[in-house]
């Protein structure tokens, strides 16, 4: 089933650009970051695929590989199946094309990722922090993030029982 979908995609984009992995529970496709928007448009509107739902968009930080991986979870009512796309950007100046034009819901997911992981999405309508205050320093979901001890002169932690 999933391999059939991969074949459709590979026909369009070529087998070299899309790497197929099925060693995890949900098989996924690894693509280059430049390709993600075209791929998303194709997957959403191709009549054979019709992945019309974007379930989730998530960023994972891998400091040792020096990259941040975006994980896109798509769902198709027609196929009744979940599909995972992955793409990686470098950690220093992470930039990626926004897919807000494909799924409007991606807008907020991308803002959240920008907020918590620091990935900048180009062509995004409103690239601002979503959950944290505008003046927050750092991106908390990065693995090397250290919690500030004070925020606006307030202590951020309580000590253990002693």
């Amino acid at each position: 089933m999933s391999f059939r979908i991969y074949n459709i995609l590979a026909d369009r984009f070529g087998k070299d650009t899309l790497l197929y992995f099925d060693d995890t529970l949900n098989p996924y496709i690894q693509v280059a970051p430049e390709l993600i928007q075209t791929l998303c448009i194709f997957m959403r509107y191709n009549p054979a695929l019709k992945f019309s739902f974007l379930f989730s968009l998530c960023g994972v930080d891998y400091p040792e590989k020096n990259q941040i991986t975006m994980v896109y979870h798509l769902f198709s009512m027609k196929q009744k199946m979940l599909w995972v796309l992955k793409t990686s950007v470098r950690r220093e100046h992470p930039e990626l094309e926004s897919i807000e034009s494909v799924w409007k819901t991606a807008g907020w997911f991308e803002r959240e990722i920008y907020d918590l992981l620091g990935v900048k999405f180009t062509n995004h309508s409103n690239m601002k922090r979503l959950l944290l205050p505008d003046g927050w320093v750092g991106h908390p979901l990065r693995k090397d993030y250290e919690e500030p001890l004070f925020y606006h002169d307030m202590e951020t932690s309580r000590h253990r029982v002693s």
Partner: protein
Amino acid sequence: MLKTELKHLKPQVHTFKEEMILNMGPQHPSTHGVLNFLVVTDGEVIHQALPNVGYLHRGIEKLAEQTPYTTFIPFTDRIDYLAAMFANHVYVLAVENLADIEVPERAQFLRVIACELNRIASHLISTGALALDIGASTPFVHWIRERECINDIMESICGARLTYSYMRVGGVSQDINEQIADDIYKFLDHFEPIIDEYNRLISFNEIFIKRLANVAIISPVDAVNFGLVGPNLRGSGIEMDIRRTISYSVYDQFDFNIPIGKGFKGSLGDCYDRYFVRVLEMTESCSIIRQALSQIPKGDIKAKVKRKLKIKENECYTCVESARGEMGMYLLSDGSDRPYRLKIKTGSFTAMSIVEKVSQGLMVADLIALIGSLDVVAPEIDR
């Protein structure tokens, strides 16, 4: 302070001569938690409503990276305080998927019963609070009264009324006995006629209908585009229920309908559809609970799981149909005893993002109806 605020607003909110900015929330009676809306209005008509979330951000995703798998369950209660059971459920399902744990049949049935009870409780609050926002205070209190019965049942099942922590990796923490099953049956017998009474009291009230019907219409295309899930999506007429489309747990053994919006009193996808889908869903939940109670097998309630659970490198996306729609968790393991990354996707998060689009041209009172009908819960947005 004021000047900086205005400066920060300027690129975002462009006010014309007759417009004014109304700051709705964070302490507003009907924002359902701590939410803020920057409302640009011309008199009563809204030109733009910008949701401003994050007041309840507690960094649960970051906490998950520092907490062992089995110990994280109590934190999931706090994601959505009205429907804690679903967050429990999706988390334990995700861990079981990754660790390849077989859950006993009885435990799965118990999970379904607890989840559906919780779904009723959550929908009670959501529909009641909508009525309260519209101005009728009695239905809300009646629903609180019914929810209290559910809370009592939950308390007798797992010991807590709101933050259940009922599920465990590999099963559930407590079994139900004859007494509790009997209580649930009694409650359902009482509750089903009360739904009709509630409908007579408020759902079919003409003023209520006029307030909700044809207000804040979300077309099916928009609903998919903005990633609405659960009752909000079904209110727009799309039959998508994770219980049916991606069947998890033992939901494939039950016979239940998926109510979808048909434009009951107005047009498809208006506030009334979203509201009434919830009311209908409560009846369905009742029937699921009855079936589950009658079919429940005997046996263990918990599989043997190591206390210090270590999962080899893997990843999975698990989702359940929560009271507020699809709740998904993307769990990445790296061989240690704690998750490498846990992404929690909730229904309210996507529902909130549509407010900006739908609210244009509504009146201030309609915005409140819209927020109520979308059933957003602030901690679920912010996590």
